[in-house]
């Protein structure tokens, strides 16, 4: 280790990982997308405080109305305000996706990092278990559990989807950590006598975090889509509670009469997903993460 080249390499590597990143700009569109996501989340949190029409109130005087000043995006077949239902509906998507990712990352990420750092039996056993879980079609398991586990509630959806996400998060985080665990800067830290805890938190975590965050964004987008798919099977939150998936599903019966019922919630969902994907894409190119790794 007394080789002077070794130090040079270390310095070089450190500069690769910190310096030029700060200089590249993320661009206007990136911040626009961040703003849109933030607006959606704020809307979901403060929906009760906003001057919105009650999303469950049925006004039979204005059924299937087009967009107007009073009803910004019109009303549905029961005279409910679509704009207000979309804002309240975003709560379900956001709660389910954030909740499920909290479970998935809370359990999958630490296990993945530990397994990649420790290696040995711990890694072998854990990886085999996760591999077996991955082989089982998660979407089918999710549907099966949700259809038999009644009465349905938001919390149950979050738990089931969250558990299904654990092996996926584990695989990505383990792979990412493995990539760094044998690098020189980790070896250097070990030689200096750093504790395992310190190496995991201070050396590995900052390097794994960008990959974790971009996978988190992919995960949130997947769960938002999954909520929509579950809604079509009648497995999302029970009507009349609005959710984006429920709204798109309910619109099918009235597609001929009022296509706006399908178009507005679909647009809300797609814009949300587009923003998430764009943010993820920008971050990946910013931190130089290849898409295939995810």
């Amino acid at each position: 280790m007394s080789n002077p080249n070794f130090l040079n390499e270390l310095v070089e590597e450190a500069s690769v990982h910190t310096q030029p990143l700060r200089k590249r700009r993320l661009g206007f569109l990136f911040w626009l997308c961040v703003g849109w996501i933030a607006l959606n989340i704020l809307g979901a949190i403060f929906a009760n405080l906003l001057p919105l029409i009650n999303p469950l109130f049925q006004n039979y005087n204005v059924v299937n109305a087009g967009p107007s000043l009073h009803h910004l995006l019109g009303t549905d077949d029961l005279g409910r305000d679509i704009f207000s239902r979309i804002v309240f509906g975003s709560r379900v998507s956001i709660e389910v996706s954030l909740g499920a990712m909290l479970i998935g990352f809370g359990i999958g990420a630490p296990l993945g990092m530990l397994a990649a750092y420790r290696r040995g039996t711990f890694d072998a056993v854990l990886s085999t278990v996760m591999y077996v879980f991955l082989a089982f079609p998660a979407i089918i398991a999710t549907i099966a559990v949700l259809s038999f586990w009644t009465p349905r509630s938001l919390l149950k959806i979050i738990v089931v989807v969250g558990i299904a996400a654990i092996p996926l998060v584990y695989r990505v985080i383990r792979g990412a950590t493995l990539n760094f665990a044998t690098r020189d800067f980790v070896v250097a830290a070990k030689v200096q006598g750093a504790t395992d805890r310190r190496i995991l938190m201070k050396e590995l975590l900052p390097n794994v975090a960008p990959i974790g965050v971009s996978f988190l964004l992919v995960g949130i987008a997947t769960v938002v889509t999954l909520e929509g798919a579950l809604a079509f099977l009648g497995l999302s939150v029970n009507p009349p509670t609005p959710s984006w998936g429920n709204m798109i599903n309910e619109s099918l019966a009235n597609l001929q009469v009022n296509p706006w019922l399908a178009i507005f919630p679909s647009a809300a969902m797609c814009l949300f997903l587009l923003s998430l994907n764009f943010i993820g894409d920008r971050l990946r190119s910013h931190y130089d993460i290849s898409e295939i790794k995810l």
Partner: protein
Amino acid sequence: MLIGVVFVITVGAFYLIHLLPGDPAAVILGTGDSPANRAKLYRQLGLNKPIIEQYFVWIKNVIRGNLGTSFISETSVWSTIKAALPIDVEMIIISQILAFAFAIPTAMRSARKPDGILDRILSAGSFTLLSVPSFVLIVVLVLVVAIKLGVPHTGPSSYVSLSADWIGNLESMALPSITLAIGSYVVYYRVLRSDLIATLQEEYITMARSKGISSRRIMWRHAFRPSTVALLGTAGVNIGGLLAGGFIVQFILAIPGLGYQLIAAIGRSDYLVVQGIVLVVSVGVILINFAFDFATNLVDPRISRE
């Protein structure tokens, strides 16, 4: 390894379904029936035995190729699967032909001039489509094609079987296949484009160019094959995903493929049908992945030598 995973899947499929509440006796007899009748039915169906014993009875039959007879519809599980599987296969084949037929030429166009106008349009377009879930796509397609344009057999619940009328069948398969094709196209285009761009920067491409070989020939003969490794891996995962996840378009349009039958069977607690379909789908996914791994080795022999 392969057999081990399949074994675990059979156990998973079996226990998952049995641990859940939901009672086939209640479905068959109705909820108001007497407990004595119910106990008798349980004995007849073999549901009174311990779960482990039930599993071994089932798995022994499965190994002999007998997936059992549904308690509910009293038809053999295999006949249900045999009727449904070709629909999935047809849908996947049509969608994959469409996806590759569009992805390969457009990715080549993009890679020829990265960041050119055409590349920007194609990339932005594919990126936008990436954010449109399949159920939104199918709803929009139904709205435009079935309702506004009035093309026959394209709306919900208008499936026509291949043996009855092949033109009608193609019409009814068009929208779900296009929906799946768009989802696959986006992924394939992005993967192939970035790999082609990387390959075209290799020295042997410059060498080929300096020999005066046309850029069309360079693209097809020199750059394409080495750029398809990641594409094949992605296609394997994606097609497996279509087999397991194609249920949503089938469900919306009431096309009686495997996914549709699975959802219907879950809805009526039809254990044996659910187990059978989960088994067939899981094994199918594993075999597809295996086949594409093999294809990757053919494309890049270095992989198998490692």
